[in-house]
């Protein structure tokens, strides 16, 4: 029997510095420990079937990440059962928010992501007024040419919104932003931080939400 589930989870501190490739492996082991039998692809070297909606880069935290898993259980499982098994077998760095059974035919998430929301805290002390000025300057610019991996691109159109965080839980100054996340047109929060003239490495980045085209199945 083949079943597909969509898991909404948080990627927390213990897994902050893993790549999305590492995260894939961690999920495989997590599901095996939880006694959830993954389906395997067919072919010369069968691969377990699980799919992250949008790779979360190394160094980022995530509040609502999504992953689809295809299971081959002996008896049909409900989403509550899947959720219970995951919670009963903790994995440091993954917190389950919600598990949902979805149709095998539902389109893959990866193709439908359009944008992502981020909260970025600046770890170095910053004057909020100064920051607010730089934000408006940046938003007023018609283009923001930047270079990444030897390629020049315009960051400005990738920024859908950008504002100061009003109620930061820590005593750090923070920003909130929505960046485009389409294929070939994806904005990176640390690029925005660099464009604002701050140290792009001294930040804590949390992806809070992914946005999709159509209502996803």
């Amino acid at each position, binding site marked *: 029997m083949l079943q597909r589930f969509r898991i909404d989870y948080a990627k927390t*501190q*213990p*897994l*902050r*510095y*893993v*790549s999305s*490739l*590492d995260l894939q*492996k*961690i999920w*495989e*082991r*997590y*599901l*095996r*420990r939880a006694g959830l039998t993954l389906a*395997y692809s067919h072919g010369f*070297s*069968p691969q377990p079937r699980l799919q992250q909606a949008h790779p979360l880069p*190394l*160094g980022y935290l995530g509040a609502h990440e999504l992953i689809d898993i295809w299971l081959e259980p002996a008896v049909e499982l409900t989403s509550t059962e899947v959720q219970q098994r995951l919670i009963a077998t903790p*994995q*440091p*760095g993954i917190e389950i928010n919600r598990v949902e059974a979805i149709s095998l035919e539902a389109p893959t998430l990866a193709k439908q992501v359009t944008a992502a929301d981020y909260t970025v805290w600046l*770890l*170095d002390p910053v004057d909020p007024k100064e920051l607010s000025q730089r934000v408006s300057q940046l938003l007023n610019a018609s283009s923001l040419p930047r270079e990444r991996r030897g390629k020049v691109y315009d960051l400005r159109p990738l920024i859908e919104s950008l504002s100061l965080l009003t109620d930061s839980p820590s005593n750090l100054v923070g920003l909130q932003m929505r960046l485009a996340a389409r294929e070939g047109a994806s904005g990176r929060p*640390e690029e925005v931080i660099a464009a604002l003239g701050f140290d*792009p*490495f*001294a*930040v*804590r980045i949390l992806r809070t939400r992914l946005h999709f085209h159509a209502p996803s199945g």
Partner: protein
Amino acid sequence: MNIRVTEPQEIEVWLENNLMRVQKPGRYVGGELNQVVKEWSSTPVKVALVFPDLYEIGVPNLALTILYEAINQRPDALAERVYLPATDMEDLMRAAGIPIYGLETKHPLGQFDIIGITLPYETLYTNVLNLFDLAGIPLLAAERHENHPVIIAGGHATFNPEPMAPFIDAFVIGEGEEVIHEILNTYKAWRSRSGSREDLLYSLLEIPGVYVPRFYIPHYHSDGTIQSIERTTNFAPATVYKRVVGRLPAPPTRPIVPSIDVVHNRIAIEIMRGCTRGCRFCHAGMVTRPVRERSVEEILHAIRQALQNTGYEEVALLSLSSSDYSQITHLVERVSQEATQQHLVISLPSLRIETVSVELMDRLKGKRQSNSFTLAPEAATDRMRAVINKPIETQQLLETTQAIYKHGWTKVKLYFMIGHPTETLEDVRAIAEVSRQVLAEGRRIVGRRASLHLGVSTFVPKPHTPFQWLPCDTPEQIQAKQRVLLESLKGSGIKINWTDPKETLLEAWLSRGDRRMAEVIYHAWSLGAKFDAWQDHFDYQKWMMAFQRANLDPAFYTHRQRSLDETFPWDHISPGVRKAYLKQEYLNSLQGVLRPDCRLRCFACGILPTYKELRRQYPGPHWKCPEVPVHARA
């Protein structure tokens, strides 16, 4: 280095500000599955376990996995892990005055009570000095006082502890499972009486298997060889015999599962310890005797538990010679039943060169098995095989590799060694000839897909082996042999890998070094040598300069034939195998006399008399030496 930060919280803050500036930051944070975090302030004895290389090399180390579990199971002790930072991270840490720290709670290394370092091979030595420096701990044992951690090293390389003796407070010779508890108890007792450091070192002397180098002073002849080893106290045993356990305790089943990719992402279960084959070049084979096996049931139980605790899909069944495990067929049958049910990949390294091995592996071959099969013939002529006591006929090698290709593997890997004692260019050419034959057969069987890889390492004579008296080849000799091999393989399509002859030299200097070698290690480190096990880091020139500064001749250690009655710097350390036995084996090798597996007939290597009490306590077939009857005079 100058330490400017001492609080774990400050280290955490610094890490968050800097980790995105370095490669693979996941190495430096801990927090993995199965990590054990204990309350720092309320746990009496704090131990840091160090693998002196990068995280991804160190995490899978089995010795530290065993100790980590054993220590953390005690309510009165905690163990944390420490690995060396890569140079990008090290530079940042040095610039900011951040000390090296334990991954679990981020406490600086200098705040631990005991630092346990594993030294499985010699090329880690400079990293140990770097570790101390990154912790702000004085490099020399003599310069450390009551407030510094006690530094204890163990592992295969420490069967010759002398090159590292001035830097280490105490060495554990042999197996650590029992002795670790004795050390912790001794430490606790010492602390409760608020003794001096000297007092602690004296108490450590009383633990069998522990070597405290400061109570031994080597004296040299004018030619640089050892005249005598003087003991500065009668409490120091004249010979320190290694520790062995009478029965292997249950294997660790809750290993750390790293969140990032490391060298081995799998469960490792030791099925047997020791080896009875007696290959004369093999250090591990001599120092890990006697052979003790785990039962099939115990192994299966451990596999099941470890799978449950880790979620891994690969299991490696480890030993020095898997084919010699007495229940191997039964084990493979049982394990393969589990494997097919769960998409597991089982690896069973170190198989003998015989068609049975291929049948065994064939049973383990799941859906996702690798397509390569590895064998280690080591030598290609009968004469050479008799010298090293690894008799495998060429015909047998050919039949085995044929079977491998026939069973569907397309890639065969063969490990050979060059630089064996008395080796000629003919012996080297034979490697190429045999290899060509193997590949030709492979192509006949599976066509163009057949491939052959050769791993050709260079022989280094090791202490406590029958070859400890021998010089090793010069780099020029080795290069000449490598050239011959390359020429004879030209156009064959066979891929070949080998070790840089200069790197081999480093291993050779260090493995048979005396205590004066410590100065060379010190100078090499201060000239910037570190990560010597990494090809891109190893710097031959620095080591040559270090020898100059220490006023020692490297050739004395590597290219010198020792006389049969020479006292070696490691003679007061014993793996239980007698020097007289090794000498006999050396003479046998010169005559090409073979010694079969000692399970067929005991050759009195020395293990039984040394451990006869232990053998009596642990009778039974799990231990492969003969039984010792209660009244026997062994």
